[in-house]
């Protein structure tokens, strides 16, 4: 069987993962922590947040050298410490181009699971799938991927150069986009079941279904929460597929939220500069724009919103972020 082709793999420097789970129903813990990090000029190369149900969950990554700063922020802020787990020495493995393929996503989950590569977080961008795993496992993850995908050694980019770090009064972007008529699948399963769920998602890819966004966060008792955003027309197929695949005896559960809308935007060096996520949340806080999911990875910021909120969100975000098309008019 012909191997799926990928165009590249990037590996990050050593990072620290910070996971907020349930946070005693503190639905603003994600934005609160972003604000505090931005105030200390700490960059977030990765952010994955779900707020659809009663137990919000957030997975952040900061650079290893920012670990003490992050710990200090958590310790100083009432309510953050109790539902927070710090995972030291993690890394980000970035695979591109995903082509929005559930087949590729499922195969990656399957082989990483079988290869005993844990996943603490996952977020997609326009082109990339970004997995958080143990830093010591990065090379093994690359080896596993090379065994199953078509990629040559010179397409692997290890440990980036010094990142660009700067702040703008109005943050420049490449522009805003939105996608309407969506559904959100949230699935919870134990990390040890990653190979089986990877296969189930891979099978979904054979139905022609594409994803718009995928996020995941690790949580209590080694459960992974996976969120898939897809066009609403596929809702019935996914629902039936999930009903057949779910193992309630293993404590697995899923639900589908529908309808939903997606707003995304990206800009130069978004993954390297502090304050991008904080500026996003600040623009929408208190403006009746509930955010169901947030993903920041690669160069892209994704927001999943209830139906009817995308246009309003774009208008508000345009006050903080510069849209080049509008700027040139």
């Amino acid at each position: 069987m012909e191997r799926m082709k990928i165009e590249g793999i990037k590996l990050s420097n050593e990072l620290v993962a910070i996971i907020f789970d349930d946070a005693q129903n503190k639905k603003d813990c994600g934005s609160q922590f972003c604000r505090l990090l931005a105030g200390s000029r700490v960059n977030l190369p990765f952010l994955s947040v779900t707020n659809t149900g009663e137990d919000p969950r957030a997975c952040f990554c900061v650079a290893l050298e920012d670990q003490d700063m992050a710990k200090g922020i958590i310790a100083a802020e009432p309510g953050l410490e109790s539902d927070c787990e710090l995972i030291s020495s993690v890394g980000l493995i970035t695979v591109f181009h995903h082509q929005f393929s559930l087949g590729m996503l499922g195969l990656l989950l399957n082989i990483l699971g079988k290869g005993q590569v844990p996943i603490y977080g996952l977020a997609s961008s326009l082109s990339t799938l970004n997995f958080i795993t143990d830093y010591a496992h990065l090379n093994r993850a690359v080896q596993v991927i090379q065994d199953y995908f078509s990629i040559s050694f010179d397409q692997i980019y290890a440990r980036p150069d010094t990142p660009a770090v700067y702040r703008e009064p109005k943050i420049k972007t490449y522009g805003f986009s939105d996608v309407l008529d969506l559904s959100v699948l949230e699935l919870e399963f134990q990390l040890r079941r990653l190979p089986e769920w990877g296969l189930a998602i891979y099978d979904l890819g054979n139905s022609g279904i594409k994803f718009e966004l995928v996020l995941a966060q690790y949580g209590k008792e080694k459960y992974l929460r996976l969120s898939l955003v897809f066009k609403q027309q596929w809702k019935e197929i996914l629902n039936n597929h999930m009903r057949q695949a779910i193992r309630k005896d293993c404590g697995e559960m899923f639900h589908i939220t529908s309808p939903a809308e997606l707003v995304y935007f990206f800009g130069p060096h978004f993954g390297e500069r502090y304050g991008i996520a904080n500026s996003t949340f600040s623009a929408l806080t208190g403006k009746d724009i509930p955010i169901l999911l947030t993903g920041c990875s690669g160069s892209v910021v994704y927001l999943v919103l209830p139906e009817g909120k995308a246009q309003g969100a774009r208008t508000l975000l345009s006050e903080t972020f510069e849209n080049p098309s509008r700027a040139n008019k």
Partner: protein
Amino acid sequence: MSDKQLILMVDDDPDLVEAVSMKLESENFRVAKAYDGIQAWEQIKAEKPTLIILDVMMPKKDGYEVCDEIKKDPEYKDITVVLLTAVGAAVTSTKYTHRGGRTTMADEYIPKPIDLDKLMGIVKDYAHWS
């Protein structure tokens, strides 16, 4: 062989490569992609594109070097090169600013973040002339 003109998009940001590629394909161009300067040269030799959109800050070989090599090579010097230079106003501590871009032999310079519609206009203009 396709009649569509081939554009090579080179940037170490896969998201930007994808966004530009989608735009180019919607405008009826064929697109080749590269994520570093070495890959860019492999694509140039294999595909000989009409035009290259070339980032300057890249691993292995930067865009300035690639541009210079293209313009000094008799076989490839007629390929149009559009350089994507760094965010000019904000970045002061690197040689990759828009101001620095003007010392090369590139045909066009666009500072990041690029207006994708403007980029399409430039590409279509050059593609029409060639």
